[in-house]
Structure formats: C-alpha cells, structure tokens
C-alpha cells in the first residue's frame, strides 16, 4: 500500500472513530439524513413561495464557497486552536514531524479527508434534498440534483484551497501579501469587467456545464491547492516568544475582577489568526449576504432591504466567534480553581459581546454605506444584528457549553441548533429579501422580534452555566 493511501485511509478512520466515540456511531451516521431532511424542507418552502430556482441555487453555491473558506481557516489559520478543540485527543495530523511524511502531504490528506467527509455528510444530502421538491413543484429542481452532486463539492474544494493559498501567501511576508492581494483584485476586476468568471468556476458546472467550467474548476483548484500545500508545508523553527504582562491591565480596563474575560481576549488575540478571525467570519457572512442580495436584485427584480437582510445573517457570526473564544482552553482547566462552568461561560459571552458586537456593527455599517440604504433600514439592520447575535451566542452556549465546534456535529444537537436558528431567522430574511418597503407594522414586528431574540439569548446563556456544571459534575462530558 502506498504511503499516500495508508495516510488517507488512517485519517478517514480516525475521523470516523473520533465522532463515533464522541456522539455514538448512529448519531454521527444520521447526520446526512438530518441535513437532507432540513434542506428538503427549505427547498420545498422556497419552491412553494415561488422563489426562482436559479436564485436559490446560486445562493447555495455562495454559502458552500463561504463554508469552504471558513473550514480552511478553521483548520489552518488556527492550527494551535484545533489541537485545543480536540483536547487531549492526538490526531494523526500532529504527527508529521516524527513520521517519514512531509507536512505538505499531511495537510493535503487532511483537507482531502475534510472534502470527502463534508461531501458525504453535507453536500450529497443537499443535492438529494432537491429531488422531493422537484417531484412536487418544478422539474428544474429535479434536474439540478445530479449537477449539484458535482458542483457543490467542487465549490467547497475551491473555497478550502483558496483559504490555504491565501494563508500560505500571507505567511511569506510582504511579497506574498502583495501577490495574494493582486490575485484577489484581479479576480474582482474580472467580475466587474464582466468576464465569465462564474462560468469558469465550479458554479459553472451547475449553471452551464461546459469545457470552460470543467477547465476553470480544475485549474482553479489545482493552482490554489498547490500554492497552499507548498507554502504551508514549509516549517521553520521559531524562537520562543515573549510578552510583557498584559492580563492585569486588560482586566482592569474591561472591569473584569477575576480575569476570565481578559484571559479569553488575550488567548484569542495571541492565537494564530488573532482577532482577525472574528473579522474574517463577519466578512465571509457579509460576502454571502452581498451575493444573495445582488442575485435577488438581478434575477427576481426585487430590491431587497440590505440592512434587514445583512443584520440577521451577520448575527449568525456569533457561533463562529464564540467558537474561537472557546478553543484555547477546555473546561476542566478552569475547574481546578474556585470557578463554576457558569462563571466561565458568562465570561466567554461577555468577551463575545466585546469583540463580536463592535466587529459586526462596523462590518454592517461599512457594507450598508457601500451599498447605500435608508437610515431606517440601517437602524433596523443593526437592531436585528444585535438581537440575533445575542440569541445565537446564548443558544450556542446553552446547547454546546464550552465545546461548540465538536458538539454541533452531534446529529441531535445539530438538528436542535439548526431548527432553533432557522425558525426565527428565516422569516426575518424573507422580510429583508422580498418586501421592498416594509411598513410601520412590519418594522414594529421586526423590532419586537429582535428584542425578543436578544432576551431569549440572554436567558439561554444564563441557564447554560448550571446545565453544563451539572454535566461536568456527573462526569458525563469528555
């Protein structure tokens, strides 16, 4: 057996056993069924509402591309955080330095494994989800399914490889940063000039399967992956880093008597990626929102309310931001001290408010200023962002405690989390996307919803502590 096959096979088995151990085999195996069910419901709802198929599928590709970008960043921007996420679990990935395998090969196998798992767990179920709605409502949905089987994994792969390439270039100093900026600017300019960038991307595999789409996809993924793997495979010894003491000053500045908030903020700011990871999450969501708004405008002829659309979508960034804040240390490391899990979760949520809210509001206002909107729409957008952000943060803490990343791959938790987010956020997005000028009553309802979500999030966040403290006391958490 070749080293490549052995490595890849071992990584696949490792991933399966990790999740099967954490959640039980059937709960992990049921994950694609739940994804397919949720997605089928959403597709059917969109079809019933008369939303253009092209809009829905273009939005789906935008989301999958963003997911690929995000996954690449989580796996690689914060390699040190990844080790903490998984606690004392030793991954094959971390053994590259004492196995006769290059780091590049390890990273390639690691990301390929992610592609295989996400394809099986998410993208194939998403494609299958178009079949029931196609049978019920529209042939175009049925015809989309087989093309999506190819285009969605390819879109994810391009996102994943793009992130690795950007990180690899950025780590090479000024010249690398300039090159990365230049390439991104060239792609942006190409889109602006009307070059067929989309047709030559994985989206083209769905929209207009052609030699151009296939060649563009293969070449795009090959170039970005090669740059990424080659760049990240280089490992240079690094001198020990020193820092002037900063915890006390930061704790005093934020009024944090016990230093828990300051510790979280310092850990985040000093991890690979630093505070930029929060901005990155917000930017990805903004890009998705921008893409959806642009498509709705062009294809459906409706002029969406940018604030009402962007606000709730950006509020979802609370999940990833909370995730970043909880990766540096696991719960047991706090439990040697006279601290409850509730103390720690409260501090994490306060840190989330300190970094997540300003970043999100700033990103939202910049985007709205760029797109142009009314002051009313902007104000309601900010209100919705804060409400959804508070809600998602509290919900995540309640459901997943201090381990949101791993535990939300538990099928039952994922279902609960997905449903709890979709139920309030989907109607808000519909209002933003399809109601051109909402009246006072509708805006009042939006405001009440935002305030209610904020209140619910606060209550959930407060209840998260006692809930998880009891679990740790029983010894039921890994």
């Amino acid at each position, binding site marked *: 057996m070749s080293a490549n096959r052995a490595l890849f096979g071992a990584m696949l088995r490792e991933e399966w056993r990790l999740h099967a151990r954490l959640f039980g085999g059937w709960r992990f195996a049921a994950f694609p069924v739940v994804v397919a069910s949720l997605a089928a419901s959403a597709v059917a709802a969109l079809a019933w509402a008369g939303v253009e198929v092209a809009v829905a599928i273009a939005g789906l590709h935008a989301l999958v591309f963003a997911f690929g970008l995000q996954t690449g960043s989580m796996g690689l921007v914060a390699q040190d955080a990844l080790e903490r996420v998984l606690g004392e679990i030793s991954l094959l990935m971390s053994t590259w330095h004492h196995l006769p395998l290059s780091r590049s090969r390890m990273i390639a196998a690691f990301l390929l494994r992610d592609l295989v798992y996400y394809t099986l767990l998410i993208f194939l179920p998403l494609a299958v989800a178009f079949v029931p709605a196609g049978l019920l409502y529209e042939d175009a949905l049925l015809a989309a399914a087989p093309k999506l089987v190819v285009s969605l994994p390819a879109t994810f792969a391009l996102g994943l490889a793009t992130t690795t390439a950007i990180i690899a270039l950025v780590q090479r100093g000024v010249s690398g940063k300039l090159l990365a900026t230049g390439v991104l600017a060239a792609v942006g300019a190409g889109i602006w000039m009307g070059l067929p960038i989309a047709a030559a991307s994985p989206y083209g595999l769905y929209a207009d399967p052609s030699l151009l789409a296939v060649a563009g996809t293969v070449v795009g993924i090959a170039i970005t992956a090669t740059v990424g793997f080659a760049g990240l495979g280089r490992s240079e010894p690094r001198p020990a880093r*020193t*820092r002037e003491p900063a915890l006390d000053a930061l704790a005093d500045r934020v009024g944090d008597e016990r*230093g*828990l908030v300051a510790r979280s903020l310092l*850990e985040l700011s000093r991890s690979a990626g630093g505070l930029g990871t929060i901005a990155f999450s917000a930017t990805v969501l903004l890009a998705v929102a921008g893409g959806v708004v642009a498509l709705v405008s062009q294809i459906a002829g409706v002029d969406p309310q940018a604030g009402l659309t962007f606000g709730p979508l950006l509020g979802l960034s609370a999940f990833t931001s909370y995730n970043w804040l909880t990766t540096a240390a696991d719960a047991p*490391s706090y439990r*040697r*001290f*006279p601290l409850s899990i509730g103390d720690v979760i409260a501090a994490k949520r306060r840190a989330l408010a300190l970094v997540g809210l300003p970043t999100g509001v700033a990103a939202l206002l910049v985007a709205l200023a760029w797109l142009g909107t009314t002051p009313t729409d902007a104000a309601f957008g900010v209100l919705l962002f804060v409400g959804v952000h508070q809600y998602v943060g509290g919900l995540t803490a309640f459901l997943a405690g201090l381990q949101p990343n791993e535990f939300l791959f538990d099928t039952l938790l994922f279902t609960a989390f997905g449903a709890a987010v979709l139920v309030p956020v989907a109607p808000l997005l519909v209002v933003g996307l399809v109601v051109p000028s909402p009246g006072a009553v509708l805006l009042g309802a939006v405001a009440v919803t935002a305030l209610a979500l904020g209140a619910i999030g606060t209550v959930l966040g407060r209840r998260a502590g006692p809930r998880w403290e009891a679990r740790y006391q029983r*010894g039921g958490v890994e």
Partner: protein
Amino acid sequence: MSAIQAEDLQKSFGDLAAVDGLSITVEAGELYGLLGPNGAGKTTAIELLTGQLEADGGSASVLGVDPSEDPIGVRERVGVLPEKESPPSFLTPREFFDFVGRVRGIDDAVLDRRVEEWAGRLGLTEHLDTIASDCSRGNQQKVMIAAAFLHEPDAVFIDEPLANLDPIVQERVKEALVDYAAENAVVLSTHHVEVAAEVCTTVGIVHNGRLVAERTPTDLAPDRTLLDEFLEAVEGDHAAVDAGAVGADAEPDAAADGAGGVSAAAPQASSSNADATDGDDGR
C-alpha cells in the same frame, strides 16, 4: 477534625466502578501517597475530593467542607495540580499567575512575592515572560506546580508532579512537598513507588477502584520494601478478582480457595474498601 476525610466514597462511569468505596483520612502535617498502577482510580479520587466530580455515594470532608455540597468552597481552600494539564497556551507564566491571583483573590504584592519565591525555587525566573506554548514541557510543569501553591492552601492535591522534570528540579519539588506537608495536608498521587517511599508519611495502595493496603514507609519490616508491599497488594488483589470471577460460577471449593488467597495477600487492608480509579482508566 481531620484535614481530609473520605468515607466509603463511590463513583461509577456507566458500568465501571471507578471509585468503589474509598475511605482515607489525612491529617495536617501528613503527606499521604495514593499509590497505584495506571488506571487504579487515583485521579478520580482527587477529582471527587476537590469537587470536580460529584460522588455517587459515601461522604467526604476537606478542611471542613463537603465537596459534593460546596465544590467551589473546597476549591477555594485547596490547591490542585492536575496530572495532564499545561498552562494556558497563549499566556505567559507571569500572566497565568496573575490570573490565578485574581481568581483566588491574592493581594498583588503578596502574589508578586510568592511568584518570585516559587520561580526561584523551580528555576523558572527567566521564563516568566515566555508564551507558555513556547516553554518546554518541564517548564510548563513547573508553572502548574507553582500555581497550585500560590494561595498557600491548607491542603494540596498533587497528581504525578515530577513528570518531565529534570533530576535537580525533581529533588527540589520533593523537598518542597515535604516542607509544605510539615504544616499542611498533602495528597500525592503517583505510580512511582520509589517517590512514594521517599517522601510520603503514609501510603494508600489503590487498585481497580479499591484501597487494597495502607502502609507507613518508615515502619516496614527490615527485609521489606514499599515495592514488595505494593506488588503483593496489587497481585493479591488480582488473585482476589480472578477468584471472584471464577467463584461466581465455579465449584464452591474453588471459590473458597480464592477467598482465602485474598486475605493472605492483603493483610493490612483494614481500610480495604477505599480506592479510586485514574481518569485514564475510569473514563
């Protein structure tokens, strides 16, 4: 009242009885060793006594506080050095000590003095401002040791403190433990017999979630070592378990033989129902 007292303490994880009736007493001025093979239940016992886990049964008192009733109160009063833990990756040791000082309410000036003392004793001074993840494993262990003592607790629970330390620092840590135990209660969990023999005033030998013997290293017979006692107690316990398993569905004579073997092998197991299971075997 004894500093640390556990009576018939029990903890199970699913079908596994990790701690199966632990009864120990530790007085101030005593360095009590929990000695056992890997997976014997020592770590779980410490987690129960420090309120990190809730016991399924039995009772415990640590410095007058019931860990099940008031886990935070217990951890305010004791120091804990966990077996598998590093200081926070992105803080420097000095920042971690500042964090510990805030959590434990230690005055700044007092904290600074104690940090200097412990850093000097352990040879950590020049690494106080290095990001913890860039410190060697040994220096990370020194940070964790110092952090357990900064508030000068009346009782300390130490789990395998000498891992990754060079011989010189190992000697310093052992000296520090002995000094500290002169006026306070110290529970030392280890599977190194020679360490337990060297520093402990009393040693409880634990195996398969039970205390199978309790010894005073200085009072052993001239021709006996703590290793002899340890092997005899653990192997005797193996025999007892095997005999019990066989006896459950075997001939009555065979069961009786097995039972006879147990008491002969563990003559001092008066507190024989005490024990614990290490985290790595218990869960």
